[in-house]
Every structure is written in C-alpha cells, then in structure tokens.
C-alpha cells in the first residue's frame, strides 16, 4: 500500500508553521529581501536555493531572530515574531561555521541549551545521551571540538541544535565544509534525522544537488525574491523561468518565435530551418518570442536521420566523457551549441561518434519547456 504523498502545501485546510507576509529587509540602500510572501508547513524540509547575495541567508537570519524585517511580518505558528528575541524563540540554528564552543566538550556543547532552560541534571544527561546516539557520537562526548574531525563536528552542531527539540531547525549551508563523498552520505543522514524527529527543517544552500536531494520543496531565489517554489522534480522538469531552468542543472536554451500549431506551438528558431514543435500549458500569442529549455539528457544523438518532428542537424564540436555519462557539444546552424547527453550503460560499447562527425539531434514534443521572455 502506498503512503499518502507528503504535500501539505496542496491542502487548503493545513495551517502553515511559518508565514512570511510582505517581508522586506533593507541594509542601508541595499534591498536584501523584496516584499516576500511565503508559507512553510510543519514537517517540511524546505530548501532556500540561490547564488550568494540572493537573500537566502537573510531570510534564515530573520527566522532565527538575528535580523528584523524592515517591513512586513513573520509569523511562526501564528505568532508575530517581530518583537521576539532569538533566545525566546522555539527555533534553533545550525551555523555554517558550526559555531561550536571551543572551550566546552562535545557533551557540554550539546547540553548548553538544555542547561539554559534550567532542566534537572538527569533529564539533561538523558537528552544529551539520546542526541549522541542519534548522531553516533557516543565515543566523543568528552572530546573538545578541535579534537574531532570535520564530519564529527558537523554532527555535534546538528545534535546541539536539535537537543532543545525546536519546532523549527534552520541549517545554514550545513554541509559546505565537508568533502563530496561525506556530503552525500550526510545528506541522507539529515533526511533520516528529519524524518525521525519530525522537526521542520529550513536549509540554506547554494548547492542545487544538495537542495534536490534533501528537500520536500525548493525555493529558488534571485535578488531578494523567490522565483519559484516547487518540489525538486517540478523545479527540474517544469521550471517557470529561464533563470530557474538555467540555475538548476544543465539546460539548452533556444530562442525563437512561437506560432500556434495543432496541439502546441511551432517555434521558428533559425533561418532556413524547419520550426521546432513543443507542447505547453502556458498560452502564447501568435508571433510572441519565447525560450525553449531542453535538458541535455532528453536529447538523443544519432548518425541516421530520426523519425521525430523535432530534429536538428549538426556536427560534433566537443565530447565530455564523465564516466557514467557522455556529453556531446553539437554545433548547429546559427553558430550555436546544443548539448546532448547519453548514459554509458555498456562498458565496452563502441562509441561511434567522434569529433567533427555529422549527427542528428532529436527530442519528443514534450521534452522541451516553453518559457516566456
């Protein structure tokens, strides 16, 4: 039996845990967050994704209480947070630098917040032991932060921020300091811990793979605004703008002019070339200029002319062999390059294509996403 899909944002009766209402944050003349409205629901793993300077960290710091909005309101569980200082919020944060207290042991670091609450000693010890177990740090309880490895420090920081059982956990680039292998492994651990504890996580990252791996929903940000909020697969397959398409993964963008035709649109993209065809739910007027976004792995490459409607002739300009994948950079009419990707599913297959070969690129009518200017 299939579990119901976790998607509280589709349920109109669900009350959001966090509400940004028309929030603007200015630092002097610089507008870091521009009139932003967004709901985040309980038990979500919400990722804020964007290049540096897009305002994602400011959003998180406003949730933690280190910054106050210049305009607008932030509500957590229905309560306006504008006058609540960081130490009075049921919100904890895991810092990018981990910010472990160097003069305290791992145990005391994790116990720090509990001691502030004035809990009885045995209760604190039990809770810290539980956190140590959860993050597999039992053996390091009495070490100081500089006596453990980076990955262990990351887990101490996580344990410390989870110890008080916050309603909301904020993670600021939590895996940025780890190497690629450890990062991947830790991503799954994070998801595991999030599911086990049932805490709402908001993560800030500039790493799109990380956001896609861990998040229930991803918000792509640019210059203080959220450009698109959607599940990872929607973000990837149905980007709402060239910015999102380009920011997440690799994409070919072809500019053209749309004309309604049958069940979709014909797009004229280069002189003396047959138009490309794409289907979309968006409405385009006759003669409107548009962008066609096609992921490289959705383009097939062949030496024979294919039977599909969308096909473009070109020559192989470059080949990037990545082990599991090969990416072909194909020069097509109009001096543009289109990338096509194939999975190297066989170990010893003869890779027939080489530089300067004439090839055909083709894709289905639904492979491309039509985007407005």
């Amino acid at each position, binding site marked *: 039996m299939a579990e119901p899909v976790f998607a509280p944002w589709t349920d109109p009766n669900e009350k959001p845990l966090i509400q940004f209402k028309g929030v603007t944050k200015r630092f002097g003349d610089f507008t870091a967050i521009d009139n932003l409205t967004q709901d985040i629901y309980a038990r979500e793993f919400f990722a804020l994704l964007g290049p540096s300077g897009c305002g994602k960290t400011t959003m998180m710091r406003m949730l*933690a*209480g*280190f910054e106050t909005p210049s305009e607008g309101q932030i509500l957590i569980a229905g309560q306006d947070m504008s006058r609540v*200082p*960081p*130490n009075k919020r049921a*919100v*904890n*944060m895991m*810092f*990018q*630098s981990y*910010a472990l*207290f*160097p*003069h305290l042991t791992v145990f005391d670091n994790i116990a*720090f*917040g509990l001691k*502030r*609450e004035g809990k009885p000693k045995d209760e604190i010890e039990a809770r810290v032991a539980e956190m140590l177990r959860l993050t597999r740090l039992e053996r390091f309880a009495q070490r100081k*932060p*500089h*006596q453990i*490895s*980076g*990955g262990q*420090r990351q887990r101490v920081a996580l344990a*410390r*921020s989870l110890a*008080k059982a916050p309603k909301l956990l904020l993670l600021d680039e939590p895996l940025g*300091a780890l190497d690629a292998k450890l990062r991947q492994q830790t991503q799954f651990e994070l998801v595991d811990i999030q599911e086990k504890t049932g805490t709402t996580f908001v993560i800030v990252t500039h790493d799109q793979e990380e956001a896609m791996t861990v998040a229930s929903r991803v918000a792509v940000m640019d210059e203080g605004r959220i450009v698109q909020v959607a599940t990872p697969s929607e973000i990837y397959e149905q980007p709402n703008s060239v910015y999102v398409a380009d920011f997440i993964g690799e994409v070919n963008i072809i500019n053209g002019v749309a004309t309604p035709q049958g069940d979709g649109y014909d797009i004229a993209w280069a002189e003396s070339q047959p138009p490309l065809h794409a289907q979309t739910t968006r409405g385009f007027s006759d003669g409107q200029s548009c962008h066609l976004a096609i992921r490289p792995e959705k383009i097939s490459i062949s030496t024979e002319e294919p039977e599909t409607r969308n096909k473009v002739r070109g020559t192989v300009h470059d080949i990037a062999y990545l082990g599991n994948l090969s990416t072909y950079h194909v020069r097509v009419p109009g001096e543009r390059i289109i990338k096509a990707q194939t999975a190297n599913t066989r170990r010893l297959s003869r890779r027939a294509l080489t530089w300067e070969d004439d090839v055909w690129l083709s894709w289905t009518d639904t492979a491309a996403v039509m985007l407005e200017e």
Partner: protein
Amino acid sequence: MKRFSAFNAVSLTLGFAFLYLPMIILVIYSFNASKLVTVWAGFSTRWYAELLQNEAFLDAAWVTIRVAVVSSTIATVLGTMAAYVLVRAGRFHGRTLFSGMIYAPLVMPEVITGLSLLLLFIGIGLDRGILTIILAHTTFSMCYVSVVVSSRLVSFDRSLEEAALDLGCTPFEAFRLVTLPIIAPAVISGWLLAFTLSLDDLVIASFTAGPSATTLPIKIFSAVRLGVSPEINALSTIMIGIVTLGVITASLVSKRASIRQQAEAQAAVRA
C-alpha cells in the same frame, strides 16, 4: 636555517648589553656588603634584611600593591567593555571619535595626564591619597587593556555569540558563558600589563599622590635624591623581579592561547 655568524653574535651581545647591563649592575650591587654603592666588598643579603625593617618602604610597597591590584582590575573591566563596544557595536554615531579618544592616552605625555588629573582632583575637592592614585592609574592603563582585548575580539567568530543567543542565552549570559571564557587569555594579559604599568609608574603617581599615601617609585625617587643607598638597589631588584614575572606570565598566557587557537584553526582547515 642560517648559521649563527660572528656578526650576529656581536650584535646580539651589544643589543642585550645595552638593554640589560644597567639592571645587571643594579642587581649585583644589591648584594654588596659595603655601604658604598660603587665599591664591592663581598656578597651579602644584609640590605634585603634591612629593607624589611624599613617601615616607610614597607608602607609604600603595600600602597603600591593595593593601587596596582585595584586599578588594574577596574581598568580591565572598563577596558574590556570599551573594546567590546568598539569591536561589536558596528558603526554607531561618533565611533571613530570614541576609538580615537580611547587610544589617545597611549601617546599622551604622562606629565600632561598627571597634571590634568591633579587639576581635576583639586577642582572637585578630592583629597589626594590612595584613591586618587587608583583613579589616575585606572585612567591611563585602561587603554592598554582595551588595545589587548580588542585585538583578540577582532578575530573572535561572531557566530559563537549568535549560537549562544540561539540556544537561549540572554546577551549578558552569552558574554559571560561564551565570549568571556574564550577571550579570557587576552583579558588576563591585559590585567597583568595594567598591573605592571601601575607598579612602576612614577610621573602620574607623583602628581596624584598625597602626604597620606606614597608609592614605591616615588619613595625610591625621593630617596635617591639624598644619595643612592644599597637598600634602594635591593628594593629595585625586587621590583624588577615582580615586573619581569608579570610580563613573562602575560606573554606566556597570550602565547599559549594563540598556539591553541592556531591548532584549532589548523584542525578546522584539515576537516
């Protein structure tokens, strides 16, 4: 590693001789058996023994130590607070003026500091005594403390304080439980610096001391005007000892702290 050449050896010897020969002579003559300072008549500790009989010197020593302990403690509290505001509060109105004014006493001639304090104390009708010396010493040693502490605070990771706030500390608790323990070495070496500065100050103390309280440097200075006695040599030797101990401890404390910091930074880079 370069070889230790003859040239290096000579310059080192000359340099150190220039710095320490006078003091070495003073220390040697403090163990002189003769009453004449410049004639060596065998080893003796009689001047140290006589020193212990000299009520006036012992009183002055006691005053000096009390002044040094109290003034350096007050200076450390005030200096740390000033450093914290300078480094943490960001750009507030008049910040540049404030920082300039805190560091000005470092370069202000002591005579002027002393004179202005004297005028102030007379103006407000405060009788000169141990209290006025303490106030004066606090004034000039506070800026040394704030220089030492602020240089440590500049490299202090701000997110540690934010983490403390995030985990439920009030701003004051965050300072007491996180910031202070971490910058403690700088605060301690600031205290030791203020302590030794107060211990050997003559100029400012002579402006602000009254008949009821005299510090050791004043006592020595006035005694020397009547002629150098071996007793003074003994006393000076003891003071050199105390100051040296203070300075060495201060530098050891800050050196150990910086070594540990480096080790932590390296560990962080490795990670």
